[in-house]
């Protein structure tokens, strides 16, 4: 079955780390540049994330995500460089359009911030099985019912996609055209979407029944098939990340 998550099933020391450490790393990468307000720190942070992604062997999988982000970022650079209200200092001119230093610097801030968040997130997303992440969070106190909901989405979407292709066949069998002019395809929207939604809603009843008889609403404390995944170095890495953050905060306030 085709999966919608970006998780790459590989062996690497990054994969071995527990999801909590990776979540903490996201917070770290997010807040450190915000606290220190320095381009250099942002650069280093992005750099570190990219090195980690390479170490995990998943850097190729980041390309589609980054290319989408870059597409938007290019428009940010152009628009801010040209039109930012604070713009004063002209850097260069192309025909009637002037690029300003203030706007470009601001665009650079945004670019770094986005890159930073996206790359830190990608470490978590590409190297952690969604179900592992959810299970860890449930162990830390998240409602198992909500945990179920999140994990089941990863299975329900491919299931709905499969039923969508059967539905397409069924409606074509009734003479509905799915190819051709925009107006033809627009007319196909409801006959395709309708049965997908109705079918999925009708199935919720049977699925809810099946869950109920599997002790879904049991009040007994839950147990787990797998042992909790921890890494020998997890505690250390977490401690260092936290210390660095606190240190940066202290430096920022008193330094």
């Amino acid at each position, binding site marked *: 079955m085709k999966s919608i998550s970006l998780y790459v099933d590989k062996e690497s020391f990054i994969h071995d780390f527990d999801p909590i450490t990776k979540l903490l790393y996201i917070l770290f990468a997010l807040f450190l540049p915000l606290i220190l307000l320095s381009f250099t720190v942002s650069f280093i942070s992005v750099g570190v994330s990219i090195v980690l992604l390479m170490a995990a062997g998943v850097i190729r999988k980041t390309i589609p995500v980054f290319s989408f982000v870059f597409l938007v970022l290019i428009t940010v650079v152009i628009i801010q460089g040209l039109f930012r209200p604070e713009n004063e200092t002209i850097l260069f001119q192309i025909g009637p359009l002037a690029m300003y230093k203030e706007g470009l610097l601001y665009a650079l801030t945004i670019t770094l911030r986005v890159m930073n968040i996206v790359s830190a997130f990608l470490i978590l997303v590409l190297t952690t099985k969604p179900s592992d992440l959810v299970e860890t969070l449930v162990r830390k106190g998240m409602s*198992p019912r909500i945990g179920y909901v999140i994990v089941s989405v990863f299975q329900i979407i491919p299931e709905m996609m499969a039923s969508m292709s059967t539905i397409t066949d069924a409606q074509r069998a009734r003479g509905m055209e799915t190819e051709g002019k925009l107006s033809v395809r627009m007319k196909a929207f409801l006959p395709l979407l309708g049965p997908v939604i109705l079918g999925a809603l009708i199935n919720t009843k*049977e699925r809810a029944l099946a869950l109920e008889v*599997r002790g879904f*609403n*049991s009040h007994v404390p*839950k147990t787990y098939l797998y*042992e909790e995944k921890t890494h020998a170095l997890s505690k250390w890495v977490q401690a260092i990340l936290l210390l660095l953050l606190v240190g940066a905060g202290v430096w920022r306030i008193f330094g």
Partner: protein
Amino acid sequence: MNKIVVEGLKYKYPLSDTLALDDLSFQVKEGEFIGIIGKNSAGKSTLCQALVGLVPHFYKGAYGGKVFIDGLEVKNQTIADISLKVGMVFQNPFTQVTGSKMTVYEEIAFGLENIGIPRSEMIARIDYVLDLLKIEQVKDQNPFDLSGGQMQRMAIASIIAMKPDILVLDEPTSQLDPAGSEEVFQAIQSLSKQGITIILAEHKMEKVALYCHRVLLLDDGKMVDINTPGKIFSRGDLEQHGVAAPVYTRVCKELGVRKAGTSEFPVTLAEAESVLRGRKI
């Protein structure tokens, strides 16, 4: 010992004007294999669900009478508590997969995790049911990649792992091919031999006649009769209740051939063969 006691059970779904179950009373002994038959919308599914507490707890609606499982009254228990005593398997193999587990092994663990079974016992139970239902070889596959018969056996395994004393099955083979349904029937039969009480709602009368100790005939939410397959399928008014007897019974009825020394007609292939053998045909 009576495992299930039903007394004057009545039930009406929300939004409905008619009773889905109308004053049912019967008892089931430990280890019995009971078939529930009747035309569509006679109340078979509703009755199955009343035994596991989905009726009334899941649907709400209006409820009367009593259902006791091992002396516990269903109305006063939660579905989670009842599910430790009674397991249920549904018609559609796809919708009863939890959709939150990546392998058959994990899927079976789902219920055990919910009811707090310790890990070592969980693993022992899963290995046991994988073997019992003969799905060992697919334990690492994605549940949705199984064949229908395998999926249904996985569903049964998931329930049996929770160690209920009673297993309720609502037309578990209606969506399977003959090979798949044969696999499932054999699994059910072997569970019955292990002493698990089985309640099976089913349209395939030949199977009901072959496996069930007693058969409960429903029509319009009312219980018409509960008796041995021989007695039930020999009734003259089956068609009026929307049920056709097994083909072997129909043939013997036409020919007026009864089982020796009884007023009953044969209900299985073997019985029909033995009474017809030697006749000039």
